[in-house]
């Protein structure tokens, strides 16, 4: 009987409380943080990887320069740094339930998926990364995530 009463009270409290912080956001943020750490690791190792290339054996910058040319390699390096910075900003924003961060994160995942698909057709598939981004896209597109962001936005505007 006691257990039943506690359960009922918990349920009633859950109805009165604000919606819980969506778990989906935590997972998406975690995946992005891992990506960013690995990008910086890549950069530190002078491995130029435009597409968060952490699951591939690192290539030396000389090797890449030989293949792609110095300019392209540099562009890729700066693109990686830019994506990493934007990724950090989006992750922080998403954890703070900001609407703009959702859009930026969705855009970043889209760019990543586009590169993954292009790589697949070029014969250089990176399946784990592809899977991670599919999961990110699905999680971020969940209705509860959107509702939480809208509610936070509404609260901020009213305060």
């Amino acid at each position, binding site marked *: 009987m006691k257990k039943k009463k506690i359960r009922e009270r918990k349920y009633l409290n859950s109805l009165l409380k604000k919606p819980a912080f969506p778990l989906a956001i935590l997972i998406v943020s975690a995946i992005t943080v891992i990506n960013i750490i690995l990008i910086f690791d890549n950069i530190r190792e002078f491995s130029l990887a435009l597409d968060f290339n952490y699951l591939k054996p690192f290539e030396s910058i000389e090797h890449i320069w030989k293949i792609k040319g110095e300019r392209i390699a540099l562009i890729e390096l700066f693109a990686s740094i830019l994506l990493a910075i934007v990724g950090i900003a989006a992750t922080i924003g998403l954890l703070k339930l900001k*609407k703009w961060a*959702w*859009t930026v994160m*969705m*855009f970043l*995942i*889209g760019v990543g*998926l*586009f590169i*993954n*698909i*292009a790589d*697949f057709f070029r014969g250089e*598939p990176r*399946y784990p990364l*592809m*899977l991670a*981004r*599919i999961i990110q*896209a*699905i999680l971020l*597109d*969940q*209705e*509860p995530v959107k509702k939480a962001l809208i509610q936070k936005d509404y609260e901020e505007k009213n305060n």
Partner: protein
Amino acid sequence: MKKKITDLELLRKYEPVLRFTKGEIYFPTDIESYVKNCSLWVSHPNHTEEKIVPEGKLTIDKLTNKYDLKEGDVLFLRFVDLPSLKKVTEKLKEGRLEGRAKKRGWKPGRSRLARVGYVSRIIDALFSLTLLARGKVPGIVAAIAEENSAKINKLNDKNVYYGRVIRDNGWICLQYWYFYHYDDWRTSFEGVNDHEADWEMITVYLYEDRKIIKPRWVVFSCHDFIGDNLRRRWDDTLELEKIGNHPVAYVGAGSHASYYRPGEYLIESEVPFFYRITPMIRKINLFWQTKIRRSIETSNFSDQTLRIPFVEYARGDGISIGEKQKRKWYPVLISERTAWLKDYKGLWGLYTRDPIGGENAPAGPMYNRDETPRFSWYDPLGFAGLDKVATPNQEIYFLKKEKLALKKRQKTLEKEVQSTTQKLYQLGSKRRAFSGSGGKEQKNTDEQIKILANQNRLYRQEISQNRMFLEKITDRINTLKSGKGDLPQDHIQTLQKPTGIEEIHFARLTELWSAASIGFLLVLFMLILLFMPDFVLLSATILFVAFVIAESIFRGRFAETARTITVTLAIVAALILIWQFFWTIIIVGLLAGGVYLILTNVREALV
């Protein structure tokens, strides 16, 4: 004794008021003066044309003559005869052949292309290109038609409608047919098509209640739309404007389609090719929204995605005709017996051989272009979705009839249940007596019990259902008797609404972008083909995505576009993974299923 109202009096009593848009020059007129200024032609299947009656010699009576036509021949009128080179030069000197209404004070609203998305614009571009291959009314014809029409109107500027009264199963349908010299929607109002001659129609539906004739519904014809959505109830104060007993229609500039409210309408025409694709996309979208996204809202995908957009200007700021207006109606009564309606099956204007039909002139009120009977003529009730709707007084009668039939059925069923139950009791007693004998008789009894028990269950089920139906019917009768009934818009599934003012004031830059982007995209694509042939697919994809993103920024819909693109890419990537790891996925799935089952069963066993 009260005098019986004549058909003409009925027509006059409810004749609609038509409000036109500023810049419109064609108004409902009489056919006699038009036909006098036309020539009669026949088009042969081998693409040759022959003049049968020259201009000035043609009369309404001559239209009904029997002409020696062969299989595939098309009879048509020509309002604008083949222009001489002198005439063409003269008209070209006068100015532009297209966008003609601007000279008459008409101002275009927000561009139709700015109102719709990318896919619709691409389809529209392709549709526009088809005009190069299809037959179309040349721009010069619109210019000369304007002149010819003005000449006729100088001599006879009467606004005529052709009225028909049909009595059909309790309904009295008043059809008002309007004839226009020309439809200049494309050349004057940035619309889709032009054609010589135009027939439009409005119907008022009445019924008789205790010898008093009452109006109930109004239907304004609008392009090729049919069914319930076209209909408005007489007491619908929100959606139907009236002046006394006269419904007010707002006429589309150039096209002459009728609307219930003033404004600009975005009409979207479905492309035949996409009939099958649209439901498939809708299903995929529904699955994503409800199953994966866990959303109950499914409105993101519009059926209009794969359609050609066009704008209809029905502003009502121009000339008005009818009750309490400067211009009055001149009615002409018509019926199935009217010779020119019945016997002339040809087109009322130029036949351009347009396979889609939009640029060919229409046939008369009684026929379609292919000489088959016109739906709105032979079935005015079905045309408006009224074939299943009884008049209000008939509805109570039919409900009472249904109630009586149900009550009768209930009595029969109750008797059947009583009789079957008695038989079942008898068989049950017999079965218990035979219990343990195991013989043939016992088996037969068991079989009989089974059949009868089933039968009894069905009877009882029907009785229970009928009881519910009877209650509903009684409630409905009481509601109808109290005069409450349905709400005026209950029958409407899609309500056509004009575009809001705030949507019309759209940034000029966005309009320019909407107008130029598709052409610009095509040019860049060609440049890629020429200068980067090795990277066509990748470059074209990047180009297209960049355009879509630019478009979404212009429209303030970047977030939604980013979502759509990413989700689409996620689906593609998921398909790649399924393709590559099909068996691994199956094995992992089965293993996971097995582990789950073990855990669930073990937990159950432990509890």
